[in-house]
């Protein structure tokens, strides 16, 4: 008796889902983006508006930059929002993406323990990294081919240093949040984007030690995966999304995002400007 009751309940629950998936064709749009973009909360604020306006359902797949660009190169996504202009350029040149538009920027920070044993405070980004390597403190790298990781590696290149293999250089292989937590626990230094740092500050024992300057700029572009190369992409949806992101109204919202929660904007809108 109880068995059949439970079975019926289970079946009912499962069948109610079967009904759900048989809903009328809502146009699905696969947006490949990065974990830091998703974690900033910006998409949670913007996407519902886009979906309401256009009727598309956006499937946000937040993975590392490397993976999102690889997805674009395979035609596995429809539109990409990313922040690694150097790697994105390769895709543009190869014709894998079209309609490449500048959206916004924010910046990276070098954070570290409040007592700053490596004496990084006030130094430029490149000098700061040199100082960390010269000392005993650890530096935690994302080590995951993300936009942040690639920015970090370009800074090491500018500093003319090869950090990998050194005993105070650790690679977390994880997202920004996890990497910040690791740095906080180990009293180490790391490179982070401002957005993730601000939203996690309460849990961390890390302070901003180096900021500003062109080398720490974090620039976001949106692009469509080329429908001529990959015939299965949702080209209309992707185009609508690109247009939405660079529209004046959306750009205004991007500029205001974060003010309420953090007292400062997380992003600076840039559509239409030249890099």
């Amino acid at each position, binding site marked *: 008796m*109880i*068995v059949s009751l*439970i079975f019926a309940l*289970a079946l009912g*629950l*499962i069948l*109610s*889902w079967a009904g759900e*998936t048989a809903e009328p064709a809502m146009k*699905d749009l*696969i947006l490949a983006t990065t*974990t830091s973009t998703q*974690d900033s909360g910006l998409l*949670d604020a913007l996407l519902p508006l886009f979906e309401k306006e256009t009727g598309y*359902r956006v*499937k*946000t*797949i*937040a993975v590392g930059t490397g993976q999102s660009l690889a997805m674009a190169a*395979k*035609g*596995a996504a429809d539109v990409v929002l990313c922040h690694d202009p150097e790697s994105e350029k390769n895709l543009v040149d190869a014709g894998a993406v079209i309609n490449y538009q500048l959206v916004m920027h924010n910046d990276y920070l070098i954070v570290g323990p409040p007592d700053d044993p490596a004496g990084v405070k006030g130094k430029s980004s490149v000098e700061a990294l040199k100082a960390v390597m010269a000392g005993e403190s650890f530096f935690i790298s994302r080590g995951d081919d993300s936009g942040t990781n690639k920015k970090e590696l370009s800074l090491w290149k500018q500093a003319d240093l090869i950090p990998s293999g050194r005993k105070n250089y650790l690679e977390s292989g*994880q*997202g*920004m*949040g*996890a990497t*910040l*937590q690791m740095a906080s626990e180990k009293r180490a230094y790391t490179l982070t984007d401002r957005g993730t740092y601000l*939203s*996690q500050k309460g*849990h*961390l024992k890390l302070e901003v030690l180096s900021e500003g300057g062109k080398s720490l700029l974090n620039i976001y572009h949106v692009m469509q995966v080329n429908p001529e190369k*990959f015939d*299965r992409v949702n080209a209309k949806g992707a185009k609508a999304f690109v247009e939405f992101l660079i529209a004046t109204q959306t750009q205004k919202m991007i500029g205001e995002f974060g003010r309420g929660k953090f007292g400062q904007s997380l992003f600076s809108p840039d559509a239409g400007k030249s890099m």
Partner: protein
Amino acid sequence: MGVIADGFKEAFRLLVTLNDEVLGITLRTIQVSGASTLISVLLGIPAGTVVALNRFFGRGFLINLINFGMGLAPVVVGLAVWLCFSRYGPMGMLDLLYTPTAMVVAQTIIAFPVVTGLTLAAIQSVNPKMRLQMLGLGATRGQYFLLLIWEGRLGILAAIIAGFGRVISEVGASMMVGGNVRGYTRVLTTATVMEIGKGRFELATALSILLLLLNFFIVSVMSHLQQRGKN
């Protein structure tokens, strides 16, 4: 310790206020893992029984494969299913990537060997004399099958519990093939990982508590059935 206490408070608050998003995530967790377990059970119990009872060429190898499958790393299954369902993959035309259906497929692949292998063991441990007795009393093939499953029901219920436990706690494959899309493929495990990554520990703890409670409740019911059947 404070985080865990805050986590409990947050879990309580989410449940009592019937938070829409969390309820949706919990319901989806039950649906996806429930469907996978159901399919694995419908396929696995007969499969395990057939392998237990019959001698055929390659049986030993097949049993090896089933046992190997019980320990199959979920993230590997996730990668394989992702490659299969990705747009230009062999089954890309089905448009199943980043859907709950894809998650059910992956989870079923993970649970099926567990249910099959444990059923196999349960049937094999039914007293052989009892088997002879059934046949001797004139049981048809079908009756023989069903009677054996009944005799092995303790082990088989354990197989179901193990299969369910494996998939409801799974995160690697679900994340890869589901994509953790808000309101669509987000389940308790993938949501927890995401909240940890965001540094929202209290919420992550709350979601973990909900997951554990859900797991505990469902498994309790199954255990009760199992132990009742002992008489």
